[in-house]
């Protein structure tokens, strides 16, 4: 079995990526669509899985499966050790101060709902304000609207510029002692913008607000350091970082998590239970009611080791090259309008093509084996901001090639011909 986690076999001596070698780690990239090679450019929706992840899940289910934190038998002990080891790897991945601050959840969506319902519901008062950027994914909007409805707090949208950057001047003016929570996406799934999270956090802390960062798109593409960011909560999803679906991470500061009530009740989150009342377990168990996604957590551990093995420096450099090439070539296609032209951008290219609806474009590209996303990307306020109903979105990962971008661009020309 490959040990990509320890040996950077996929890096050339000059520290650039050996993309051909990397692609061999991902069996699905060999798929053919109607006889044509799959060109997978929908990585912002979900990423593909390397063999080490597939094998880790298979091996756990075939040889090690047991429930954790319960049995005293051989398998349960081994499963518990393996599960808890991933918490430490996740702590390291986010550079969190302590492993007990890492809560395993179902995904970014559940992480945000947990914070909204546990932290938000118990601390928000009528008239308190929750500031969210206009470029948030629906999953960092709706949970706050729900808790605002329950508490009388108010959700306000921080404007964004025509380039798709947070309007920091407007943000500064919106901050006030009423601001209790600021929610910001680290990298926008619809625009690719990398937000100045550290700066926004510093400003929020000046008025005493806590900051939750939606890191779903950032965790797969850049080194995340929650201590350097200074934020209070950070959420990300396993399936976007080349791991399984059904598992994600919520990181939060110990002081905040300790003061928060449990969100869900059940097994594993209790200290003692009686009908006169129950006491709760310490962190992180307090927020992990019920049997967790054990096999998925094991798979996530393998994914984190795999990415660390490749290294974010090499990943970032290659993805920057992919984005630069794609931006240059796609922008040159007549009728293309890029949506999201921030100075700091990750590998997301959102655009419209005059006369061709994004859904038709998606179908035409699919005929060439090219998988993109077409639609509102669960970010309808972004669509409204830019006056479009939908966009086509190509999103890259380190296993994509420059040749794949050429296939995408040929498809755009073909779509123009079909709809001429």
């Amino acid at each position, binding site marked *: 079995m490959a040990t990509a986690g320890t040996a950077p076999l996929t890096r050339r001596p000059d520290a650039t990526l050996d993309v051909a070698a990397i692609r061999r780690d991902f069996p699905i990239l060999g798929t053919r669509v109607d006889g044509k090679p799959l060109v997978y450019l929908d990585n912002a929706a979900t990423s593909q899985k390397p063999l080490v992840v597939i094998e880790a899940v298979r091996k756990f289910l075939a040889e090690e499966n047991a429930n954790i934190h319960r049995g005293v038998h051989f398998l349960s002990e081994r499963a518990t050790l393996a599960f808890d080891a991933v918490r430490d790897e996740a702590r390291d991945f986010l550079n969190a101060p302590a492993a007990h601050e890492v809560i395993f959840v179902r995904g970014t969506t559940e992480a945000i709902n947990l914070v909204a319902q546990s932290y938000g519901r118990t601390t928000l008062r009528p008239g308190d304000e929750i500031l969210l950027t206009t470029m948030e994914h629906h999953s960092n909007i709706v949970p706050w609207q729900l808790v605002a409805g329950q508490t009388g707090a108010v959700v306000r949208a921080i404007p964004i510029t025509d380039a798709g950057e947070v309007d920091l001047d407007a943000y500064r003016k919106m901050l006030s002692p009423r601001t209790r929570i600021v929610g910001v996406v680290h990298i926008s799934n619809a625009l690719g913008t990398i937000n100045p999270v550290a700066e926004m956090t510093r400003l929020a802390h000046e008025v005493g607000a806590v900051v939750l960062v939606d890191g779903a798109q950032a965790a797969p593409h850049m080194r995340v350091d929650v201590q350097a960011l200074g934020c209070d909560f950070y959420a990300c999803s396993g399936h976007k970082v080349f791991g399984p679906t059904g598992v994600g991470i919520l990181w939060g500061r110990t002081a905040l998590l300790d003061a928060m009530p449990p969100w869900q009740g059940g097994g594993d989150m209790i200290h003692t239970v009686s009908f006169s009342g129950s006491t709760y377990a310490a962190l992180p168990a307090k927020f992990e009611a019920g049997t967790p996604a054990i096999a998925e957590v094991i798979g996530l551990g393998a994914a984190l080791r795999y990415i660390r093995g490749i290294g974010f420096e090499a990943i970032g450099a290659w993805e920057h090259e992919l984005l630069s090439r794609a931006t240059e070539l796609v922008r040159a296609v007549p009728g293309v309008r890029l949506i999201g032209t921030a100075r700091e951008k990750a590998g997301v290219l959102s655009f419209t093509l005059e006369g061709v609806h994004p859904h038709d474009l998606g179908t035409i590209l699919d*005929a060439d084996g090219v998988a993109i996303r077409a639609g509102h990307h669960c970010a309808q306020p972004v669509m409204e901001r830019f006056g479009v109903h939908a966009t086509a979105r190509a999103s890259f990962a380190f296993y994509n090639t420059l040749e794949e971008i050429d296939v995408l661009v040929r498809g755009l020309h073909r779509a123009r011909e079909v709809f001429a």
Partner: protein
Amino acid sequence: MSRDLDDLYQSVILDHNKTPRNFHELPPPASHADGHNPLCGDRLTVWVDVEGDTVKDVAFLGNGCAISKASASLMTAAVKGKSRADAMALADEFQKLVTGRLEGAAERKALGKLQALAGVSEYPVRVKCASLAWHTLKAALAGAGEPITTE
């Protein structure tokens, strides 16, 4: 499985997408209904002017992909002048066409120009695009004021 894009994007569909027919509002007393496909954000409004039992006029406005726009445009041409019951029956036949459940050649032929949308049946995720206008038409004919969705 091999699918041919030309079967989906036939010239009739491209033409109706580019130059949709009956693409305007109808004044009262025409009734209307709003249709919405939450998956992709497509929205359209269909107006029907029913006199006695006859669909005297039908029109639409909206925003969507070529399939949804062409389907709506072809629909307006197809149901104009039909009785309410015949229009409803045509909507059911159309649904069978785009989901690949219309078997007989005679049944297909009866759909006339609407047959151009038969290719949609090869693209399951696009069926909703073709159906939206027809669902909305049914709602307008029923006089329902509530927006309908494809979900």
